[in-house]
């Protein structure tokens, strides 16, 4: 996968803090599949600590295509949404691409995917790619021993 800047959850959430949660942000985060659970936990903790809000976490397989509006509706208590693309779902990619304005209306949306899914998403969804605030490679915060590398 092409070399995007690498960050950890701390740096990512620091960027969200700079932008503020009133400004829509849409990030694609690329991580090795094995590291994804650790990164999800890192992001949830950083969002709580740095921003003082909750994280809404959805798996791609949980997103109902007929209710995209609900999936991306603003939740004042949890204005940061993390969507993990746990499987490659071409219909979801198309729906996100065509309805990308729903993703860029409120708060921060973080799409987390492994390199393969990220590459497919960037290729299959040109409107989405165009609206991304940034694409970042993300790795787990290795503050504690035993974290998946």
């Amino acid at each position: 996968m092409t070399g995007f800047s690498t960050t950890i959850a701390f740096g990512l959430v620091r960027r969200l803090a700079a932008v503020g949660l009133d400004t829509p942000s849409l990030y694609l985060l690329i991580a090795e599949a094995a590291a994804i659970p650790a990164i999800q936990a890192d992001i949830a903790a950083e969002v709580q600590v740095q921003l003082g809000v909750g994280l809404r976490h959805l798996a791609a397989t949980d997103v109902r295509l007929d209710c995209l509006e609900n999936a991306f509706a603003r939740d004042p208590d949890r204005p940061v949404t993390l969507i993990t693309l746990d499987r490659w779902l071409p219909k979801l990619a198309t729906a996100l691409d065509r309805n990308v304005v729903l993703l860029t209306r409120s708060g921060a949306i973080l799409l987390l995917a492994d390199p393969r899914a990220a590459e497919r998403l960037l290729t299959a969804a040109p409107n989405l790619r165009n609206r991304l605030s940034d694409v970042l490679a993300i790795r787990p915060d290795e503050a504690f021993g035993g974290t998946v590398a």
Partner: protein
Amino acid sequence: METVADSKPGAVVFDRRQLYRPFLERLNPTGSQSLLADGLVVAPDHDPRDIGRPPIHVAFANTAELTRGSQMALVGGIGSGKTTELLLTQKVLSRHPDAVNVYVDMADYADLSEISTGAILATAGIQLYRRLLKKARNKELPDAVKAAWVKLRALAFGKTDWVKQPPDPYEYEPDADEAYEVVRVHVPGVMKLRLPALRRQVVEILGQFLTIASSLESESQTTLLVDGLDRLIKPELFRQFAEQDLQALKGTKISVIIVAPLLFLYDKNRFLQDYFDVVKHIPAAAADPRTSAFLRQILERRGALHFMDRTEIAAIAKYSGGVLRDLLTLARSSAEYAYRDGEDRIGRRHVKAAVKQLGNRYLVGLGNDQKGLLRRLSEDGEFPMENSTARELLVNRQVLEYFRGGLDSLAVHPALARVLPRPV
């Protein structure tokens, strides 16, 4: 800019977030409507393809005002500023007190992966009814209009009815004549309709829409501005909407300005040019970064000079390739990198990092065929437009079109060109 947040009395702590946040908010490329209200949009002063002609929003507004019922299409690459042009058109049209402007982004009302023909008319009718309700304040709307609204809502969103069960077919005994199976036989006529007949459901929706519209003063100037359907990308899907919803509006005095997918422009059938009264094309690159001050003005209007020198502004303009959304993305990423580094100003290395990120985004997913086409364009200036892979590069903005000195020219997006690997 400085906040008192330290425990020591009188100590002042610098909060860098407060420095960057307003700038980043102004760089949000998705909030055109509020940016317009805040005066942050720099309106183009001429047609992007002809400096002697008025800008697109003025041309559209003039046509809608002088020829009621005209239908206009706006095509352009992703992020080229089509929504901004529509909003500017709406603003110009509002100069007349009898103007009724209905702006709809179809994605606000419907899942674009699931919508069917009739949806534009239904959405416009819903918006128009909402407008009439607000205007009427406490007065009642005519019964016919209220009834049309109820029917329109049912047609748009469906309804649940109680119906009698038909008799069990196994208990039915047909007469001898009815026992014959009926098959459909079509005898072709000598003529083929240029446009297909309107579907029954579209006709029904049109009827309700026109009843609602009849509440407007007969001499009012109504313009429907439709955004979002360019995201369908495939021309044939868009064509169905034009042949049904827009065709249905022909003959009414309601003007339509609609955003269409860019691929249509290269369609051999020339449907776009044949169907619409006016077609305007915004090249992905709104301006040539080498010769135009337009891009720098946009950044300066949003406060860039407080954060970076003119050299950095010029570099961002250059590597945006003239694409407005990339211009804002680069400025925003550069600011985020400067913030990450704990610096108060955006430096050269922050811009460089942002350019590399943007270039990589365009590079992802490109195979050898695409890379070969890009290299040919860079080195020999050749680009086979008849090739579908080449056209995709254009639609996805990896290749940009410029209009210089009366001639069209193509170039690899400068941020992509910077990261495009050389052949081994």
